[in-house]
């Protein structure tokens, strides 16, 4: 490509456009279609129904066992990872600092555990796959988003940025 546009500029444009898309009511279809993070669970929990109440109870560490009685093990990315923020916002309707406050309170009063912090999405997938009763979250992948509608403009932008040197 002989374009003089630098990747960071494209990156910024992409963020801007995505932000605009999110602001336009209906532009991204149903609200679910705008979701970009998904919950992953260990294979033993594949059939678990995860509604917002249960997700909130699990990620605020208020419950310790799954409805089937097996212990819950929660994995999260660092608080300052943008994906964390996005996940807590979209799926739990909470801010990451509110969650951190709840975890710190438990850890320093002896009333509960903090979730295990992993360094990357790869580590997240590996740990969740290998740990019975585990739950975590990752960026939505192409292969895993087949059952959800993705806005076409988003796809275009992804192609543009990935084509840049």
């Amino acid at each position: 490509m002989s374009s003089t546009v630098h990747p960071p500029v494209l990156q910024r444009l992409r963020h801007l456009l995505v932000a605009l898309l999110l602001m336009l009511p209906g532009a991204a279809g149903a609200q679910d279609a705008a979701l970009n993070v998904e919950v992953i669970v260990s294979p033993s929990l594949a059939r678990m129904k995860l509604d917002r109440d249960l997700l909130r109870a699990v990620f605020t560490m208020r419950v310790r066992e799954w409805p089937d009685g097996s212990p819950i093990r929660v994995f999260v990315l660092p608080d300052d990872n943008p994906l964390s923020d996005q996940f807590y916002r979209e799926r739990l309707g909470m801010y990451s600092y509110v969650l951190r406050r709840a975890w710190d309170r438990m850890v320093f009063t002896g009333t509960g555990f903090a979730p295990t912090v992993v360094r990357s999405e790869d580590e997240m997938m590996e740990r969740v796959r290998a740990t019975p009763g585990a739950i975590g979250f990752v960026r939505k992948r192409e292969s895993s988003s087949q059952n959800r509608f993705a806005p076409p403009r988003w796809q275009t932008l992804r192609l543009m940025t990935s084509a840049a040197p």
Partner: protein
Amino acid sequence: MSKQGFDVRVAVALAAIFFSGAAGAIDYQVHGYAAQGFVLSQHNDFFGDSTDGSFNYYEAGINAAVQVQPNLSFAVQAAIRDAGISDDGSPRLDYAVADYRVLSDATVQAGFRAGKVKNAVGFYNETRDVVFTRPSILLPSVYNDNQNQRSLVFTSPGAQIYGGKVAGQHELTFTGTINAERDVRESDERLLVILPMPFDLRIGNSWNVQLMDSIDGGRWQFAYSYFTGQLRLSTPPEFALAGRLDVDAHVFSARYNAERVIVTAEYVLTGNDNRLTLGGAPYFHSRLAADSGYLQAEYRVSSKWTALARIDGTYRDRHDRSGREFAAANPGVDRGTQFAEDFTVGVSWRPDEHWGAWAEHHWINGTTALQSLENPPPVRHQRWSMLMLMVGYKF
């Protein structure tokens, strides 16, 4: 001392469970924190000889928690803290608690705890010694950071029941604690009561409850806490002086958590009923209603930087906020000892999940938060200020 004996036994029992349980699937976590503060004040001393700059302010702790089964866990924390005359840096068992969960599903949780438990009072009491959980280095006066109510309010042996229920957008939680009768540490006694003779203080009849409503994933939080306790004063038979100091406190808390802005307000109304007897006959009786409150705004500039501003007031007698009546009735006593109004601005920096740095400046009118052992009367300045800095690490 029997209290320390109890502490040690609990710690040993928990340690035994912790280390014997290393086999297999038992979950455990170890966490800790440490922070060093610095205080530089003008006119009055706070947390050490701070008019010359005081490093006599630090806090550290380490804890372990073991989950034996999903419904049974044990946790213990040892801590040290130094804060001028008001804390002495000696190691203590901060909590040692067994937690049994009776109900645990997505919308209802309930259980009980026993051991040395943390008392849920206001938003910050339970984790008040961990700077990472405080909005500022110094807690607002609702929490009496320099007033030595450690044995009374902070943490105590006892039994606790707790519960939570989700109803629509509301998450209601309840904590109720009954504290065992206990002795007040000598280093605290001398700050709570000043008498020209030897004496002993015990705390009895103490319990507390907290009800909290957390709305819309914690966007709004409202809480009511009630605390009550009875300090019993005794002196050797030859002095024949005895006393009962009843304390109760109603704490109202509200907080709004937005993406960037956090607004917090708390108000405490404290009743003191003090009776002294001499040779069994009534000798002195006073009733006072004190109150404190603050309004605080935090602005999250980014995920790393937060700015804070707060107005805070505390009054020893809510019917005499200016202290003028008190000064008229007690010639030679400065009315400024009866209140403190504190305007604070601060900033905090959290470069990563482990480190934090805090800086704040207080402009204060009134001296009620000062310790007289650090500031021998009558050389107190009613208007004073201080700069506080703190650096901390947690894992």
